[in-house]
Every structure is written in structure tokens, then in C-alpha cells.
């Protein structure tokens, strides 16, 4: 099953992970892995998620997560894993 990669980039504040996880749980998305690091002074979080049981389309989820990010002041991107596989794996 293809995974979805959700990234959150921005200034670290309280509750970012909670809000993203709550949204994902509400839409029946399973989080399989979370990693985080600081790159060039910014908080970077990456989640690997399984959206096969999600109650909305990948495109809509991507748009909603982007909007959610705007409300909490971070950039949230939700992307099909293939864009990274294509670029970084032969």
C-alpha cells in the first residue's frame, strides 16, 4: 500500500503535533511513523501515514491540511510518497 508523507515545517509551538494528529484521527488516517529534526533553524516533522481507510480524497486532505497549517502558523504538506520515491530512488 502506498503511503502518504505529511510534513510540518515552521516555528516550534505547543500543540502542533496534537492538532495534526487529531485531524488525522478524525479522518481515519493511521500514523505509522513520526520523525522530527531541526533543519536550518526550523522545526521539521515528517509523518508516514496510511490513508487507505481515509474518509476523503488525498487531494482534499492535502488542501484541508494546508488550511489547518495556516491557522496554527506552520506549513503542512501532505504528499503521496511516490514524488519522493521517483526523485530519490532509481
Amino acid at each position, binding site marked *: 500500500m502506498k503511503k502518504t*508523507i505529511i*510534513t510540518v*515545517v515552521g516555528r516550534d509551538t505547543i500543540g502542533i503535533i496534537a492538532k495534526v494528529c487529531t485531524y488525522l484521527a478524525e479522518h481515519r488516517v493511521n500514523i505509522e*511513523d513520526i*520523525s*522530527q*529534526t531541526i*533543519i536550518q533553524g526550523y522545526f*521539521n516533522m*515528517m509523518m*508516514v501515514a496510511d490513508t487507505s481507510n481515509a474518509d476523503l*480524497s*488525498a*487531494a*482534499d486532505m*492535502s*488542501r484541508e491540511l494546508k488550511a489547518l497549517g495556516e491557522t496554527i502558523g506552520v*506549513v503542512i*504538506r*501532505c*504528499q*503521496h*510518497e*511516490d*514524488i*519522493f*520515491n*521517483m*526523485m*530519490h*530512488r532509481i
Partner: protein
Amino acid sequence: MINIFEVHETNQMITQENLDVRTITMGISLLDCIDSDLDRLNEKIYERITTRAKDLVKTGEDIEAEYGIPIVNKRISVTPIALVGGAACRTPEDFVSIAKTLDRAAKATGVNFLGGFSALVSKNMTAADELLIRSIPKALAETDFVCSSVNLGSTKTGINMDAVRLMGEIVRQAAEETKDNSCMGCAKLVVFCNAPDDNPFMAGAFHGVTEADAIINVGVSGPGVVKHALEQVRGESFEVLCETIKKTAFKVTRVGQLVAQEASKRLNVPFGIVDLSLAPTPAVGDSVAEILEEIGLESVGAPGTTAALALLNDQVKKGGVMASSYVGGLSGAFIPVSEDQGMIDAVNAGALTLEKLEAMTCVCSVGLDMIAIPGDTPASTISGIIADEMAIGMVNQKTTAARLIPVIGKTVGETVEFGGLLGRAPIIPVNTFGCEAFISRKGRIPAPIHSFKN
């Protein structure tokens, strides 16, 4: 599994370095719309385009959202209209009515350009070809999204100089017809030598007669990504420089291949090609000129420019071909003046001339692109510039093109604004010595010999 640094690298390319897919272009054959009744023909064309491309824009937007990669343009190319309209059109006005139908269809499908108001006259013109060519100025003035192209020569046939002479006049008329709108007609009109059948980029896209009923072609971009990668290898050897360009081109092209496959699958239309072009935009940091300067030129146009561009173009192809199963179209670095801030600056600084641009077109795709020239440039001089560009393509067995804008009422030192992706262009000086007697000769330049290569 993908790691966080790889994800970060990809997303940095997209958000900071202007990585995008420049266009998904759906090629649509109109050959079976041919009808001797003009009204019926127009109806069939509208119906065909709006049915085939109904979901093109929506699908593009969905792929954009799901993969997080901007897809800047969704476009359509159609069979050259001189072939489609030949049976029904008796006057240039008849062809203008088809242009208006194409424009309506483009607006109904939500695409931002539709190419294929075209004639292929590399050897000679049919009556229909000539009618279409004569209709171009009015067709472009009275439509918003229709683009026109004319293939004037090829390595196999030589150059049709009668058509070159006519196009000099047509380019001037197209400028006159749209002089209150930045001479926009000329920005939507390009002439070619060796025009490809599967080019997804405007203004020269058309759906060749060798193609299927419908096809998806994708054009990638990414000058900003290449420039950023080269900033990390300043002062290194040519080997390191070339490796860096190749690796970056590979990554950029893989994204195009992914988008092309997805669009093809979702639209149930076969995948044609990925066009490997480095296509700049007027945005800062999205410039081919800046890559050449990063390679080591004080300004694009300086001695060394042609060699640097040859290197860049070749490495982009070498990196790109492995990333895609089918590569086609124009595939090379574009050097449009108005659409590249670095080129604009170089012209303004006096570093880049028309003659140097012509030399650059010998080693890259695609030609003298989006170049504003003085409004009083005679038609014969425009034909002369076109003939020179066609000769470069013919002899070197490559695609070349010319998209020249004589800016009516303006001269060297002034600037013309097109807006959007078309940008703005400083008017460049043109050699004022004439070529009237040369252009007045009738007939065609024979095809070059294909042996004795020197």
C-alpha cells in the same frame, strides 16, 4: 523508506527554488472533424475539444494537490488547423471563425493556452496553408488563448523562402493588429524549422499528424533548482559541474515523468513524452541566464556564453533521458528574453545582443524567443532574421524557432510589458542594413547535403 532529509530536499526545491511542472498539454487530433461545411466543422471541433479535455484542468489540480508539486499550466494542442480547415475554408475570415471556436473551447475547458492554429509549409504552401497564414494576424487579435505556429523549413526539405517572406509581413501585421495590447499577437506566434509533433510548450505546440487521437505530453522546468545546486560547487572542475547538472536534471525530470504517468492514467489518454526543457519565468531565481552566470560568466552574452550554454543543454539532456521512458518535444534550455529576468538585465546592460542570441540558438533549444525589436523594422528584415534562424536549424538538424515582436511605436531603449509568464522585454537593436533583394527572390532554399560533415 524515504528519510526526512530527502523529503526536505524535494520540498525545498518546490518551495524555495521554483521547481514545478510547467505544463500538462493534451494533444487532440481533429482530423476526423474535417467537414466541407464550415458551421458543421466548427461545431465538431468545439464538441471534440470540450469532450476530450473536459477533466484536464481538474485532473491537473488534483495531481498538484496530492503530490504537492505545482503544475503551472494545463494546455491543449490540436492538429494543424490548415489541414483541418482546408476543405471548409475559402477565405482568411473562414479560418478566423475556427480560431474563435478554438478560443471558446479553450475557455470552456479552463486551459490557459490552446496551440495548433498552424500550417506546415516546410516545402511549399497549399491554398489552405496560405489562407490560414493570412488569417493569423486577425485570428490572434480576436482571440485570447489561441496560439499559432508555422513550420517554414526542415533538414529534409530545405527552407520555403516564399513562406519566410510572407511571415515577415504577417509578423508585422500581427503586431499592428494588437498594437494597443503590447503587440500581443506576436507573442502568440512562432515560426519553426524542424518543428516537433509532440511539443507541449507554447506558442509552438501542435498535435502532429503522426500522433494518436489524444496524447498527454508534459513539460518540466527547474532553472532555479539547477542554479541552487551549482551554487554548492563554485570553483570546482568541469567534471563536477557536469555531474551536478546531470543529477539535478534527473531529479527534475523524474517529477515530470511521475506527473505524466498519473495524468495519462487518470484521463485515460496515452502518455506521449516528457519535454526536458529548462523553462525560465520572469520570477527572480527562475532564470537560465542566472545558471550561465553561476557557471562563471559576468553576464550572459559575455564571451564563453555559447560554450557554457552548450554544456548546460547537453548535461540537462544526459541527466533527463534516464529519468523518463520517452523524451521528446523541444528538450533543451529555453532562452526567451522577456521571460527570463537575467536575460532582460543582460540586454539592458548591453551585454547581450541579437547576434549573440542567434549564436546561442545553435547549441540549445529553441531559438530567438520573445525578442522585442523596434516597431519600424521592415518586414524584409524580419524575414531575414527568420531565414537565418531557419538556416541554423536546417543545417544543424535541430529545431529552431523565432518569436519576434516588432513593438509598434517603440524603439531601442524602451520596454514592452506583456504581463504574467510572458514577462517584459527591452527592445533590442536590429542591424539596419537591408536584405530586401535576398528576401524578394522566389522559391526555396534546397535541402543541405547530408554527407561531407565539416
